């Protein structure tokens, strides 16, 4: 004998059950999956952020809520760190994006040794800044291999200074930032349907026009995103500015300024204020890039990716 299936009482005609109506708006039990992430954000990001924000308005030495900000912007040494950081972060991010594009473009499709090449390009991401810095000192330092070779070949008379200045930090940002940009751009590229370029070819477009008119426009939202992320990475540069830079001069970046205030002068309030300024600048740059991106084509790129 079979038992009768349990029948739920149907609500009035034309009106779906509450559960269905909520599900229609994406509200169902799977929302619980968000809980750990939300909790994490609240505890580890939002709370410290708001705490830091209010701290920055309570200066240690008095002088009103905005005293820290006034100090920062009136001190040319502190104020100058913004320019120094931008001057490192923007070129490094641009360089990483611009160099990744042709390499990733050429490395689409299958060929022998692709996996090995990708591995080689991506390995630096695993090195960590300190190891990279040591390598740079070994390789590019006054007594490093490069300078030895250059001097021995009589290409230069004096060792070239490539570390403990702007270039040391720039190289470090490229070494650690490039694999990241390359991986992102490769994945954006793989989302573009290869038959689009073939179609363009049969219509008479050579490789440059195919890239310029088809691939690049479809890729540019991805480029904008990659630039933003690379920029954020580069803008918060800290260890390499210390290790291979000139931390009290040419690479006195904004994170060093914040560190100096908070952990050397023990002025947490000032440190917080500098961090807030740093966050604001990043937001402005990202805002500008994303605004520019919002004005471009953002729909499907026809691929399976």
């Amino acid at each position, binding site marked *: 004998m079979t038992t009768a299936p349990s029948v739920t009482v149907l609500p009035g005609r034309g009106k779906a059950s509450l559960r269905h109506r909520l599900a229609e708006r994406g509200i169902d039990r799977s929302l619980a999956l968000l809980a750990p992430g939300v909790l994490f954000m609240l505890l580890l990001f939002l709370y410290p952020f708001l705490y830091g924000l209010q701290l920055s308005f309570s200066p240690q030495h008095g002088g009103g809520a905005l005293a820290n900000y006034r100090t920062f912007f009136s001190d040319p040494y502190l104020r100058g760190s913004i320019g120094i950081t931008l001057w490192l972060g923007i070129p490094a991010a641009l360089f990483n994006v611009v160099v990744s594009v042709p390499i990733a473009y050429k490395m689409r499709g299958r060929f022998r040794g692709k996996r090995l090449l990708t591995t080689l390009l991506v390995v630096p991401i695993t090195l960590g800044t300190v190891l990279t810095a040591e390598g740079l000192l070994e390789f590019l330092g006054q007594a490093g291999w490069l300078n030895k070779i250059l001097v021995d070949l009589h290409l230069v008379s004096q060792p070239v200074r490539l570390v403990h200045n702007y270039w040391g930090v720039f190289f470090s940002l490229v070494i650690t930032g490039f694999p990241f940009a390359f991986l992102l751009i490769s994945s954006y590229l793989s989302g573009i349907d290869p038959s689009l370029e*073939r179609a363009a070819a049969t219509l008479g477009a050579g490789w440059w026009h195919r890239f310029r008119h088809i691939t690049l426009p479809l890729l540019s939202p991805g480029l904008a995103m990659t630039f933003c992320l690379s920029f954020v990475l580069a803008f918060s540069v800290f260890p390499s500015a210390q290790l291979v830079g000139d931390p009290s001069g040419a690479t006195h970046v904004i994170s060093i300024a914040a560190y100096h205030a908070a952990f050397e002068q023990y002025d947490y309030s000032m440190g917080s204020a500098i961090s807030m300024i740093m966050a604001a600048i990043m937001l402005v740059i990202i805002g500008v890039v994303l605004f520019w991106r919002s004005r471009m084509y953002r729909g499907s790129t026809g691929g399976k990716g």
Partner: protein
Amino acid sequence: MSDPRFSTLRFEGVTRRFGGQTALADLDLSIHAGEFIALLGASGCGKSTALNCLAGLLPLSGGSIWLDERRIDGLPPERRDIGMVFQNYALFPHMSVRRNVGFGLQMRKVPKKEAAHRVDEAIRLVQLEEHVAKFPAQLSGGQQQRVAIARAIVIRPPVVVMDEPLSNLDAKLRLEMRMEIRRLHQALGLTTVYVTHDQEEALSLADRLVVLRDGRVQQVGTPEDVYCQPANRYVAGFMGYRNLIELPVSRRDGERVTVGGGSIQLEGTARDDLPSGRAVAAIRPEDLVVSETGENRFDVVVEVVEYHGREQSVQGRLPSGEPVYFRTEARLAPGDRAPLAVAAGRVLIYPADGAGALAEAAA
């Protein structure tokens, strides 16, 4: 109508290998200007490979392709002047219909005014005037396919190639677009090479068919040739001879051959040199009639009946276990005994062991 720019497009021994696999073997084919050629075959038969070789998207492993006396197989795709319509349309998603269609002219540096005029004309030809400003994502599948066709023909290429252009459309739209493609071909007289796995599409569109299998040509001929006189059992199967019954040859008298043994004896026409031994009798389902009298009588037991409106499509089984497909207006039920007959002129007899001698017949 023929194209004044060339008179013949020739494939000479075109071969393409992928690793150790031969996708296309030694294709020889001459296409006259203005002709509509369909390459027909199941997936993996080499038809798309042939098309990509022609368009320059795949390099050849051997052979050559000629437009009259000009060899084109070494040219990159952008210098071949072959308009291509892709199976997935491959419209540029970030360009409006107008810019998609105009892309080829822009690449050819056609003056703006003339380009605009030609784009309008092409768009009118495919009846998309109201949609010029839309983007591909805003169009239906059929409209997207029209854009793809307009984009390929606006450059007035000597040859247009189409790679299964209708296979992503639903049945009704497919019929409409088929007419549309035929109409455009009649209006413009563009030499067209059309790839499809659908025999009905190929028969209804093409002036000549090229049937391919495993990279080799099985038969080249007009739709009527191929439909009525398939060169081998494979082509026959493709052309709707759904019943392919393998039987021993019992008697032959010139073209007249009798095959069979036991419960079934079939008399038919030999389509190829028949070795003595086993043969295949090919019969279309619609040529079998339910009747107690007539030529080539045999019985089957009904297994599956499908309703098709006026007719039913029936699968029966011979006592030997082989399935037999036929159509009838008689109401039959599974388990019934059905007496069948078929005119001897409607039975084609092929050698049982495949296509050995047939490639020559096709060439």
